């Protein structure tokens, strides 16, 4: 007889536990592969959702900022709240040169904005008149690309661009005459001017096509009798700068007179909707992780019941219950490892394909924003790593319950079949 307690070393059993776990999962290859497939497909679905949401967010932000908004806008303090045409930025000359010198700002477009009455020979309609600098506007918004008929502004007197629906409402076409009536700044005398429809645009966005008209900046200033602008739309070097409030220009362009806001603050509905969209990854992944857990618990229990006699033997001949527990967790770990390798490869292929071809949602309108270009999936390495680890963790966690069950087996009960 020999008592080896003194020399007992847990590390020495690690090898045999790993060997047992590793060989056990390949005993029923089909079951293991099906389980691996279930887990890896869930991982693919999660990563696809994540990449899709990223793509959608970026597309929506791109559409809403690039169409007309700009990534940021400068206004006179109070203008946004009141839309009062008196609140215009006066000292435009120095401001423009300051903006032009700012490296982070790629382009800017000054705008004069006023509510107006437009009347044709057939009809009248309310509209918002934008006075824009034709060259600068083309660098910031998609107005030039949105032209469906006629010519873009060239700076000539009495040019006016109408939204497609507005033109239909007023029953005018190219070359037709149109009277615009506004109330002037500082006092509110009515002022009128005659225009000839020089172009029709369509942003594919109802509110814009319904109620917007563009005229040349200088004529708008004259009409309203102001010597400044209401809004300066900014195109930044890159989108992230809109978030980065540490950049110097944010301070320079925000003072007691000027208010400069990024797109998130200009259209808070959009940013809150995007925040909600991001939850969809969380929801999808939670649901799938629960399914993975249940599937895996089921598989592990099936495999444990099949091997009950074997576990009984292992326990009878002196295996510590803890070792059996670790063995089952290790089996889960190996299954998880296989699954994430397969899942990440498949997800990469699928998402990569989606990032090249894009997913076409054209003409689907979401909260007033038309997705007029396909959504290109965006692969994010960090999410791949995070989700893969989360999946591995979930598979190991799911094995705790079956592992506890195996460790608690009474050897005499487990071996009833043979005894």
């Amino acid at each position: 007889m020999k008592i080896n307690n003194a020399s007992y070393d847990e590390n020495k059993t690690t090898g045999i536990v790993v060997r047992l776990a590793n060989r056990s999962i390949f005993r029923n290859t089909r079951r293991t592969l099906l389980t691996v497939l279930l887990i890896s497909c869930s991982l693919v679905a999660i990563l696809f959702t994540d990449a899709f949401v990223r793509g959608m967010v970026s597309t929506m932000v791109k559409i809403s900022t690039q169409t007309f908004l700009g990534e940021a806008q400068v206004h006179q303090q109070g203008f946004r709240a009141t839309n009062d045409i008196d609140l215009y930025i006066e000292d435009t000359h120095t401001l423009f040169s300051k903006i032009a010198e700012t490296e982070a700002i790629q382009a800017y477009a000054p705008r004069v904005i006023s509510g107006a009455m437009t009347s044709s020979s057939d009809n009248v309609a309310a509209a918002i008149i934008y006075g824009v600098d034709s060259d600068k506007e083309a660098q910031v918004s998609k107005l030039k690309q949105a032209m469906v008929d006629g010519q873009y502004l060239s700076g000539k007197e009495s040019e006016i661009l109408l939204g497609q629906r507005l033109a239909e409402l007023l029953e005018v076409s190219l070359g037709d005459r149109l009277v615009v009536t506004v109330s002037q700044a500082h006092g509110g005398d009515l002022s009128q001017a005659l225009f000839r429809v020089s172009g029709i645009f369509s942003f594919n966005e109802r509110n814009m096509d319904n109620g917007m008209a563009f005229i040349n900046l200088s004529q708008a200033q004259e009409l309203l009798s102001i010597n400044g602008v209401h809004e300066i739309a900014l195109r930044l070097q890159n989108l992230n700068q809109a978030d980065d409030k540490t950049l110097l220009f944010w301070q320079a362009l925000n003072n007691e007179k000027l208010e400069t806001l990024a797109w998130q603050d200009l259209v808070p509905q959009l940013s809150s909707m995007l925040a909600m969209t991001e939850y969809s990854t969380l929801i999808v992944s939670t649901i799938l992780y629960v399914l993975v857990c249940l599937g895996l618990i089921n598989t592990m229990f099936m495999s444990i019941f099949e091997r009950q006699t074997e576990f009984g033997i292992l326990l009878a001949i002196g295996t510590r219950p803890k070792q059996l527990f670790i063995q089952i967790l290790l089996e889960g770990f190996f299954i998880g490892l296989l699954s994430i390798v397969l899942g990440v490869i498949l997800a990469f292929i699928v998402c990569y394909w989606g990032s090249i071809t894009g997913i076409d949602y054209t003409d689907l309108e979401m909260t007033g924003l038309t997705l007029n270009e396909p959504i290109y999936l965006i692969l994010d390495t960090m999410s791949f790593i995070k989700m893969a680890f989360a999946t591995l963790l979930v598979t190991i966690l799911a094995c705790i319950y079956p592992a506890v069950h195996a460790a608690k087996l009474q050897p005499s009960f487990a071996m009833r079949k043979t005894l």
Partner: protein
Amino acid sequence: MNNIAQNNTQKRDVLVNSTTVIETKMLCRHFGQGDTLVNALTDANLTINKGEFTTIIGPSGSGKSTLLQLIGGLDTPTSGEVLLDNKHISQMTGTELSDFRRDHIGFIFQAYNLIPVLSAKENIEYIMLLQGISAQERAKRVSAIMHDVGLEGLENRRPAQLSGGQQQRVAVARAMVSEPSIILADEPTANLDSKTGIELLDMMKTLNEEQKMTFVFSTHDPKIMERAKRIIRLEDGCIVDDECFS
């Protein structure tokens, strides 16, 4: 291997140096309750000495497996006590009991004894791995025992690639290789044809005599009973007879 003269000397040794390895005191095991109460074992008092080759016999359902399981610490008695090497096994915690089984008891069951994913050699090595015995020592003992049980050349076969008799030999080798004080075998020959069964038993007997290892096994088979040196008869959970042959 079957040297009668040697056998006799050893038998005498056993009788002279008789130390108790197994002792049961008023051991009871009941299953169920009320109408379904089964007295699988009632007031079993038993003393087994070192080096004995004992068989437990009795009709089906008489409590043979129950007794062996209680002795081996695989089951908990309803009342009474089991002492192995003068230790109360009922007082041990889970891990202590596991380690005690690992170091002191060898088990052989009727069938499906082996771990299917391990080769014959790995099955035999398993307990020594748990005990932390060095690779060198393990290799030495495995090759010696493989020789003793006549399985040389089959080291790397998986259990599924071995015959029933070969599997049981591996089980015997595994039970013995860690040098436990007792080997408990519950109908080790039941799944074998009688010739193979007798061969297995003769092998066990030789090992018992050569290495003075204590064997307790149960059986149905009269041919097997003949080979025992002590027969304990169970009926309805009671020990009704206990004979020694010399």
